[in-house]
């Protein structure tokens, strides 16, 4: 009995103490509170892994396994060095003090749940769905952004929000990163061992995102659906091959200057989400769903939804015809460009791939 009295007294005293500190929020305070996603900024960031073969601590190794050569012997792919740092790292050899911010306070990396009805005007395969979105910093209006590939630039020069080193003379290391791999492929016959190095200088991934949403019973595929925008911009990509320590007796460098890749996978607005699933027999199955054919219930139509045999708008269902026109004009497209391809001191000029649209893609893995 005494115990109960004691416990009750203690509990009451605890309650009375803490409750006094809680106060109701006023209407005006409540209006400042909004439901939010999560924003991430990496501040003064650097990461490096280094195998023993390239000067790391004794016993360090980082291997990718599961690859076999034509004689079914294991091929060991070891990551001699991986780094992600601030710019000016001299291909990963001068990392001290080379720090980078990933994301800005006013344009961070975000993890958010979006309303599918507010994306692409409420149409497409995410209608009435919640969409999980993981996004890198966004692209901005050219007046507020920076050139996406230049190693130094000032505000108003492009659409990337990540700033290069010392942008506008602010003395700040910015949000562009150096990244690279030095990889050794080691075979059973060690005379065949190969070193391959890849470096990206002053790079950013602004505008990239991964959006994921579920399917319902009316969908042709029950797999999880996604739309991916994979942007990678770099002032220069450098490939070379050296001895297995990654730095001596290197061959000529192959360089891609002002590299810009905007890879669009899936286009939910036009019912073309990308799906990745595993088949009943355990094989990987990747699809970009086919563009709906004329007459498909999902394609808007005025009457029949048919397209004339000559392909002209006259004679076709105008609403459907314009929907396809909109797809080819405004649908998501892949662009890749390089301003100058160099091999050693030779220059091979620019090359680009613009406006690639995927209308249907299906890949299934097979056992070999």
């Amino acid at each position, binding site marked *: 009995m*005494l115990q109960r009295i*004691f416990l009750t*007294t203690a509990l009451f*005293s605890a309650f009375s*103490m803490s409750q*006094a500190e809680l106060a109701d929020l006023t209407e005006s305070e409540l209006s400042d509170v909004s*439901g*939010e*996603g*999560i*924003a*991430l*900024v*990496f*501040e*003064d*960031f*650097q*990461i*490096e*892994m*280094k*195998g*023993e073969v390239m000067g*790391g*601590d004794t*016993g*360090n*190794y*980082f*291997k*990718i*396994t*599961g690859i076999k050569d034509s004689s079914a012997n294991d091929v060991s792919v070891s990551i001699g060095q991986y780094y992600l740092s601030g710019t000016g790292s001299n291909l990963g050899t001068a990392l001290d003090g080379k*720090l980078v*911010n990933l994301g*800005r*306070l*006013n344009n*961070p990396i975000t993890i*958010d749940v*979006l*309303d599918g009805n507010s994306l692409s005007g409420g149409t497409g395969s995410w209608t009435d769905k919640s969409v999980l979105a993981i996004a890198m910093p966004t692209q901005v209006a050219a007046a507020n952004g920076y050139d996406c590939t230049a190693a130094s630039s000032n505000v108003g020069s492009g659409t990337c929000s990540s700033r290069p080193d010392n942008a506008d003379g*602010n003395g*700040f*290391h910015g949000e562009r990163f150096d990244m690279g791999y030095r990889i050794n492929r080691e075979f059973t016959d060690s005379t065949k061992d190969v070193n391959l190095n890849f470096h990206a200088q002053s790079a950013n991934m602004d505008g990239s995102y991964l959006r994921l949403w579920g*399917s319902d*019973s009316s969908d042709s595929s*029950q*797999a*999880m659906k996604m739309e991916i925008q994979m942007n990678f911009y770099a002032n220069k990509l450098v490939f070379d091959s050296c001895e297995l320590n990654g730095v001596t007796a290197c061959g000529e460098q192959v360089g891609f200057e002002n590299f810009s890749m905007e890879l669009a996978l899936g286009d939910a607005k036009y019912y073309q989400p990308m799906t990745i*699933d*595993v*088949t*009943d027999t*355990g*094989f*990987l199955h990747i699809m970009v769903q086919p563009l709906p054919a004329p007459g498909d219930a999902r394609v808007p139509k005025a009457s029949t939804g048919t397209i004339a045999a000559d392909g002209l708008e006259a004679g076709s269902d105008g609403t459907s015809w314009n929907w396809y026109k909109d797809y080819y004009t405004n649908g998501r497209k892949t662009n890749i460009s390089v301003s100058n391809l160099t091999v050693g001191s030779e220059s091979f000029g620019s090359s680009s791939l613009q406006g690639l649209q995927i209308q249907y893609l299906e890949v299934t*893995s097979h*056992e070999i």
Partner: protein
Amino acid sequence: MKFKYCVLVIMLSLVAQLHALELMNDEGLEKVTGQNGVSLSGELSFNEDGGPLTDTIDPDGVGSLTSTWGACSDAQASRCGARLSVKLNKDTGSQGWYVLDEMKGKISFEGLTIKSREITATDTFGGDENDIGSGMTVLEIGLPDKIKYENFSYNVATSSTARPTDVGFTQQVRYGVDFNGSVNMQGNMLVFPTGNP
């Protein structure tokens, strides 16, 4: 009976101590400062001391396999370690699984810190600290200096069934990872709310 009195006396003395607690007034509270943040170190290990292995031991040769206690390095263990299977399809779709298989080894880290931080004009964000950032409170996760892997490995695979013991099991290993050594890191991860869902 004596024991009961003894308990009673102890309890009364505890109650007497409780009386020493008093509500703090606002002035008193203002003077109290708490240490902000925590520092964490951690270690995750799989099968470090071995576990029951059901694999290739078939003592009488007639088919039924026997469980033995052993470590992943033991010869009979052709498969060993933790397995994580995920299926993202509904039951009407294809029935395969994504798998992280044969996870074993150890990961450890030291010096992960978590604290709240107010962005002020003295912070360096290339001007953003004066723009949107000033006065904003963020969760600062100080990344550990080193993440240490000790013979840490796993395979990424696709599989027809959740478990290797299920009927009709086939599995394709896409690639594996085998890490030993330290990964060096520096910097902070700042977490704060954003967006308009």
